């Protein structure tokens, strides 16, 4: 096994998680939990691939993917922000809807053959840094580099800009924001949309860059759920979200690759000789997600991790207690 190759592929695969995680961080920082990430990613992956097949232009595919997933997210925004319905239920429904829609619309797409993919390249100079160069800056897809830019931008935006400050205020104390003339509803719609677009981008990154093609719901294989778990793990911080995404991306690769060789570090490789062990490994990221989600649904744990105080709560103007 070549560790450099595993890490390199891990960063690429982590980029998918990164986009979805960043998107969900934006939505949740505004106070809206969106469990529809998986559905939005599937819509993104399907429409990106299908548009790229039709037009031959992968960038067009990316654009349409982001818009399609963004639009889908607005259903969730309408249900939870305007109609003030339960965010968990609506998010789950969104995943069902997104999954179903992408399966129907993507019918036959898996036999579409080859399409033009997003370009991959190395960064001069940076790629020559020992260790880091080959892992992060050699033969990576353009989306991976975009991820490097997006992470610090998101972090800076949330913490050091006026709109970022308003985003935090709306998720922490919407009534306070409202009395100061900040439009809570509009901002929540907007950041749910941002979350949708980034989930769409994550989907497009799968189908047009990282593992190209359309394999129905196996295209995302539950990565949307991992992203939702990563947000809690990251304590709603983009930089921690990026670290978590890359670590998980690398683990996913490792779990796949570890089943290949007959020997591991001079010993017989148990994962090669016993495929059930491999299945167990493959289960781990999802088990992690389930555990994080269960823990994260506990009020006390959430408070301790620093969840946005109004996360999951609809904002109703002029409620008693104002």
């Amino acid at each position, binding site marked *: 096994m070549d560790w450099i190759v595993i890490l390199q592929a891990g960063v690429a695969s982590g980029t998918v998680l990164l986009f979805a995680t960043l998107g969900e961080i934006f939505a949740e920082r505004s106070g809206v939990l969106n469990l529809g990430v998986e559905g939005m990613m599937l819509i993104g992956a399907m429409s990106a691939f299908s548009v790229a097949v039709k037009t031959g232009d992968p960038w067009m595919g990316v654009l349409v993917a982001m818009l399609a997933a963004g639009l889908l997210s607005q259903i969730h925004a309408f249900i939870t922000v305007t109609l003030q319905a339960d965010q968990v239920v609506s998010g789950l429904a969104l995943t069902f809807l997104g999954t179903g829609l992408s399966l129907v619309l993507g019918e036959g797409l898996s036999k579409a053959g080859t399409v033009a993919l997003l370009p991959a390249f190395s960064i001069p100079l940076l790629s020559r840094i020992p260790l880091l160069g080959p892992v992060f800056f050699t033969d990576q897809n353009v989306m991976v580099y975009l991820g490097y830019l997006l992470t610090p931008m998101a972090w800076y935006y949330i913490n050091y800009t006026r709109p970022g400050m308003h985003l935090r205020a709306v998720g922490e104390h919407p009534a306070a*924001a409202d*009395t100061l003339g900040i439009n809570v509803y509009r901002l929540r719609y907007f950041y749910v949309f941002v979350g949708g677009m980034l989930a769409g981008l994550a989907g497009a990154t799968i189908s047009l860059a990282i593992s190209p093609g359309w394999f129905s719901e196996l295209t995302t294989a539950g990565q949307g759920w991992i992203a939702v778990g990563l947000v809690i793990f990251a304590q709603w911080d983009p930089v921690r979200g990026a670290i978590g995404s890359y670590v998980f991306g690398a683990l996913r690769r490792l779990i796949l690759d570890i089943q290949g060789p007959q020997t591991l570090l001079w010993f017989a490789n148990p994962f090669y000789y016993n495929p059930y062990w491999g299945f167990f490994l493959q289960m781990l990221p999802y088990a992690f997600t389930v555990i994080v989600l269960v823990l994260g649904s506990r009020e006390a744990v959430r408070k301790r991790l620093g969840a946005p105080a109004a996360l999951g709560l609809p904002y109703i103007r002029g409620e008693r207690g104002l």
Partner: protein
Amino acid sequence: MTHPPDNPEHPPLVVEMRGIVKRFPGVLANDHVDFSLYKGEIHALLGENGAGKSTLMNVLSGLYRADEGQIFVNGQLVEFRSPRDAIRAGIGMVHQHFMLVPSQTVTENILLGLDDPRFLLHLNHYHRKIAELAEQFGLHVDPRAKIWQLSVGEQQRVEILKMLYRGAQVLIMDEPTAVLAPQEIEGLFETLRSMTEQGKSIIFISHKLQEVTAIADRVTVLSKGRVTAAGQPMAGLTRRDLARLMVGREVVFSLEKKPQEPGEVVLEVEDLHAENDKGLPALQGVSLTVRAGEIVGLAGVAGNGQRELAQVIGGLRKPTKGRVLLNGVEVTRKPVRFGIDLGVGYIPEDRTHVGSAPNLSVTDNVIMKKYRKEPIARGWSVDMQAATRLAEELKEAYDIIVPTVETPARLLSGGNLQRVILAREISNNPAFLLAMQPTRGLDVGAIEGVQRLLLAQREAGAAILLVSEELEELLSLSDRIYVIYEGRIMGEVRDGDIEKIGLMMTGTPLEEIEGGENA
């Protein structure tokens, strides 16, 4: 449209509200209210809880829209659609419950919603600007601190700064003293005076007579949504006059407390430690005792561990260290019912959610601690006839005003609901009674009733721990008073020395106060 010229004897009118009507489902909160404010004055808005004070000012600050009536600012008719409109006209309100984002800094909270800065925050520049403004009005607070790190008094200063930064000329303070210790109240009053000297006008909402007498130039009294005194100068008004205007009848100011020797120790709290909901230390070694036949007060600014202490004693929270003994038997780390069977009565702070089951009938609510025992229990079942009979008896004995005992508890007024809870807890003849803010939010008549019931329990030999944020109530009911600050007992006072209590409420331990006196 402009209003008639000002009376030349008075300073100019900055605000005039005419004929304000505001209805909520089933409530007429403001009934044709008139209100006027002169430049540079402190105008008190006095009234009991529920009189409609906050509603009226929420209308003035743009949060609510009046159903009828007009508002003039500096002689111009205005219409506010949002608080933003009001603040543009120079009117800012500091709410009863602060509107601050706890995870953000002072500066961020002040800048929220403004157009400047446009995109990047440039925090250092604004930290300096805000520090200067704070200096000007004597509102000391660190602009870089996060709100959750600040004391309640400091948070209030941030709220005031928020409004001043937006250029407020009129500042509405909704019950600003409710959350402050006596010394902090004095500081607030100084700030308010310095603001009027600099040309600001202040509306001071309160239901406490002595504060209004201490600070206001004029007073408007509301009672059940109506004005009973309109902008009268304070000179020439006595506390008795004000009380009558508030309540609509004569009010007796003193309660009779018979001198009485306390008996055996009933409740003993030993070195109690506990965490709050966030997992932060809330109690850090609390020890206290309560004897039979005495009322022991626990004073302190809200949020200093009172709630957690009450929850541990009531069995609703597990301590991390220490124990609670009732007549020598440990009740900590035991089921709640264990304490109940030993004679713990608990009047919780939140009467609608913790103290009662809002959708259940009065009968169901009063038998909650009795349904397992004769005569309410009959074998495995509940004897509903006996239950109803008991509820009827309690209804008579405790003056619960309700059409029938089958009425759901949620339809009761605050005072009546509190009597239901008291009836349930007291009729068990508790050895120990824990009363948490038992009169908060009740009107004067109801307060008196509750206080009499507590005194009667004292005479009957119960040990009572009274947790309250109303110092006056503690002073008039308690035999001795402990003061709690940041989860520690600062000391114990037997002579009702309000100065000492105040110092302890802001974190000076009793030894230091007395050490200072002797030095």
